[in-house]
C-alpha cells in the first residue's frame, strides 16, 4: 500500500482585522503605500496582530482504499484543510501530494443555476466537478435514477422543492469517478431514507477501493463508516487513530462533559435548599464508570444527591437526548419504596437502568433532575446535558443489527421479540392464487 494522500507540514495563515483583504480598495491601497515606511519599522508587531493560523503543521498520510473521518469543532480548520487538498487555496507552508484525480464536494450543488433544467444542471455541475461531458452522458441515466426525479428532469430547478434539488445535486456528486473523494459535511442532506441511500453509496465507493476523506459532525456516521478518524482543534492535529477512540477524545475534550460529573462544593451544585446534586455517572453492570458502551450491554445512569430539608417526596428523573438533539425519552423513578414517602435528610443514590439492545448507536447526552409531584410539581434540581456516553455497535451479529451491515435508521434500536408462523395454504386455494 502506498500513500495516496500525503499531507506534509501544512499551515495556513489568514489575515484578519484592519485590512480585510476581501474589500481592499485603491484608497486603502494608497493609504497603505504611504504608511509603508512607518509600517516597515514595526512590521513584526503589526503582522502578529493581523493574522490567524487556521492550520498549523498538519501531517498525515492516507493509503489507498482508506475512509477517514475528519472531525472537530467549527473553526478547527477542517474546511481549510479540505480546500488545500482540493487545490482551491494554497497552504502558507508545506505541501500536499495526491496520487490520482480528486473529486471534491465542499458543497452540494455547486454551480447549479436556477434557470437551467435538471438535465442541463447535471451536465454543468458534472463538468464543474471535473468530469467530461461524455462521462456525464454515460452516467446520466444512473444519476437521474438515483435522484428519483425522472419526471422533472426537464423542469428548471428553481421550481424544484428543496428536497428534490438536494437529491439531484447529491446524485451528480456521488457518481464522481475519481480515485480520491473529499467531502465536507455533505451527508447531512435530504430526508432519512435518502441519507441512508447516500451512506450505502459511500460504502460502495469504499468497497471499490477508492480513498475518501470526509468531514462530519455526525459521530455515529464517523464511527460506523470510518476505520480511522483525524481530530483537529484550533488548527492543530490532536488525534489520529481508530475512529471510536478519536471520537471519544473529541467528545471528552470538546463537549466539556464526560460520563462522570461531580460537584465537590455543595453550594455550587445544581439544586435548591431542599436537595442538591452530588454527582451523576454513567456505569456499566459491574459499576464501572464508562464513556463508551457496547450496544448490547445494559447501562445505568446514577444520580447521587444530598437531601437538606426533610418532608419532601422526591422523584429522580433522567432525560436522554441523542447527538442530533432529538429527545429520546424521559424516565421517572416510580418505584414503590420512595414514591409517597417523604425523605429524611441524608445522601441518596438513584440509578436508572437502561437495557442493552435498546438505544441506537451514537452519542447520548443525559440530563438529571430531581422533582416533587406531591402536593405540586416542583423541580428542585436540574443538570441539563450533564453526562455523555457513546453507544458503539461492533457489528456482532447477536445485536438487533442481525445480518444487516448497512446503516440502521431510527432513534432507538430495540431487540424485539419476533414470531413468524407458517400457514400452509390449502391446495385448491393455492391453485386459485396461482391461476389468478
Amino acid at each position: 500500500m502506498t500513500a495516496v494522500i500525503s499531507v506534509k507540514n501544512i499551515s495556513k495563515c489568514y489575515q484578519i482585522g484592519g485590512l480585510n483583504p476581501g474589500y481592499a480598495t485603491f484608497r486603502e491601497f494608497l493609504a497603505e503605500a504611504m504608511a509603508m515606511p512607518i509600517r516597515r519599522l514595526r512590521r513584526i508587531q503589526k503582522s502578529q496582530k493581523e493574522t490567524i493560523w487556521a492550520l498549523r503543521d498538519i501531517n498525515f498520510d492516507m493509503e489507498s482504499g482508506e475512509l477517514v473521518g475528519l472531525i472537530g469543532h467549527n473553526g478547527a480548520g477542517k474546511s481549510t484543510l479540505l480546500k488545500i487538498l482540493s487545490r482551491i487555496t494554497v497552504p502558507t507552508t508545506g505541501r500536499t501530494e495526491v496520487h490520482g484525480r480528486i473529486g471534491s464536494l465542499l458543497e452540494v450543488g455547486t454551480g447549479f443555476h436556477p434557470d437551467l433544467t435538471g438535465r442541463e444542471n447535471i451536465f454543468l455541475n458534472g463538468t464543474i466537478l471535473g468530469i467530461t461531458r461524455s462521462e456525464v452522458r454515460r452516467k446520466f441515466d444512473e444519476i437521474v435514477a438515483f435522484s428519483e426525479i425522472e419526471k422533472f428532469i426537464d423542469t428548471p430547478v428553481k421550481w424544484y422543492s428543496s428536497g428534490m434539488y438536494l437529491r439531484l445535486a447529491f446524485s451528480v456528486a456521488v457518481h464522481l469517478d475519481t480515485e480520491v473523494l473529499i467531502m465536507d459535511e455533505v451527508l447531512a442532506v435530504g430526508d432519512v431514507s435518502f441519507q441512508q441511500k447516500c451512506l450505502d453509496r459511500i460504502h460502495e465507493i469504499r468497497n471499490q477501493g477508492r480513498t475518501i476523506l470526509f468531514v462530519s459532525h455526525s459521530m455515529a456516521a464517523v464511527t460506523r463508516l470510518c476505520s480511522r478518524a483525524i481530530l483537529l482543534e484550533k488548527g492543530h492535529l490532536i488525534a489520529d487513530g481508530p475512529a471510536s477512540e478519536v471520537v471519544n477524545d473529541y467528545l471528552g475534550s470538546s463537549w466539556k462533559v464526560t460520563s462522570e460529573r461531580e460537584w465537590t462544593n455543595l453550594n455550587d451544585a445544581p439544586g435548591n435548599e431542599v436537595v442538591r446534586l452530588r454527582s451523576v455517572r454513567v456505569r456499566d453492570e459491574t459499576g464501572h464508570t464508562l464513556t463508551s458502551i457496547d450496544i448490547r450491554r445494559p447501562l445505568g445512569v446514577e444520580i447521587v444527591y444530598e437531601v437538606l430539608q426533610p418532608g419532601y417526596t422526591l422523584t429522580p428523573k433522567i432525560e436522554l437526548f441523542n447527538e442530533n438533539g432529538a429527545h429520546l425519552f424521559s424516565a421517572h423513578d416510580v418505584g414503590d419504596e420512595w414514591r409517597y414517602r417523604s425523605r429524611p435528610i441524608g445522601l441518596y443514590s438513584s440509578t436508572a437502568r437502561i437495557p442493552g439492545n435498546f438505544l441506537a448507536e451514537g452519542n447520548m447526552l443525559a440530563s438529571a433532575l430531581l422533582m416533587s409531584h406531591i402536593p405540586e410539581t416542583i423541580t428542585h434540581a436540574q443538570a441539563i446535558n450533564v453526562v455523555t456516553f457513546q453507544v458503539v455497535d461492533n457489528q456482532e451479529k447477536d445485536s438487533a443489527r442481525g445480518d444487516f451491515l448497512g446503516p440502521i435508521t431510527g432513534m432507538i434500536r430495540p431487540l424485539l421479540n419476533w414470531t413468524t408462523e407458517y400457514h400452509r395454504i390449502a391446495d385448491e386455494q393455492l391453485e386459485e392464487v396461482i391461476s389468478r
Partner: protein
Amino acid sequence: MSAINPVASEVNEGKQNFSVRGRTPLIVNQADRPLGGLDIPGIWAYRDLLFFLTWRDIKVRYKQAAMGAAWAIIQPLGMMLIFAVFFGTFIGVPTEGTPYTLFFYCGLTPWMFFSGAITAGSVSLLNNSNLVTKVYFPRLIVPTAAVGALLIDLLITFVILIGLAAYFGMVWGWGLLVLPAMIVLTVLLALDFSIWLAALTVKYRDVRHALPFVLQLWMFLTPIVYPLSVVPQKWRWVMYLNPLTGIVEGVRSSLTGRKFNWIAISFSICIAVFALLSSIRAFQRIEKRFADLI
C-alpha cells in the same frame, strides 16, 4: 514467452504503464508554488467546463427577457440611429466619402463587443465566487467563458455590419480578407483585458465603479464617431497606443476599400500579444489567492 514474441510483451507493458500513469496523476499543492508557464494540458482537461460555462451564460442572459436575443440587435441599431442623426446629419462629421451610418457602425461593431466583453469579464470571477471558493478548476476558464458568451452578440452585430456594407455598396477586394483578422484581434484584446480585470476586481472592488467611466472615455478616445484623420499628425501616435484604433480603422478600410493604416494595425497586434502575456502573468500571480480574497 517473451523470447518468442518480444513485441507483444512490450506492447502489453506499455499499456499497463499507460493505464497506471494515465489514471493517477500526481497532484501537488504547495506553498510558494512556482509561477510556471500556462498549464495547457490542465486547461484542456476542462474544455467541457469552458463550453458549459459559456453556454450557461448565453442561455441565462436572455432567459427572462421578453424579447430575448433581439436585444443584441436593438442595442447597436438604436445607437447607430442616434449617432447617425446627430453626428452624421446635424454635425456633419467628415467621413472621407463613406456614408456616416456605415462609417460609425464599422467602429461600433468591434467596440460594442470589446466593451461588453470586458465589462462581463471583469466581474466574472466575483459572479462565480461560489465556484471559485468551492471547486478547483483552471480559473482562466471563468473570464474566457464570459468573453465567449458574447461571441453570439458579436456574430449578430457582424451580420448586420455586412448587411449595411452591402446596402451602402461594399467594395469587393483583397481588403476584405483583413476583416476576419480584425475580428480575431478584437476577441483577443477583449480576452486580455477581461483576464486582467477579472483578477484585479477580485483584489480591488473599485474596478467595478471605475470601469463604466473608463469605458466611456475610451470610446471617445477611439476613432469611432470621428475619423482618425481629424487628429493632428503629431498626436496620431497617442491614438495608436490605443489598440482599438487600428482595429476600427482596419474594419473600415476592409469594407470601404480605403488604404489600410498598417502602422495602427501593427500597434494593435503588438499590444494585443503583449497584453495577453502580461495579463495571464498578472492573473497567475493573484490566482492562487482568489479563494481567500473573494
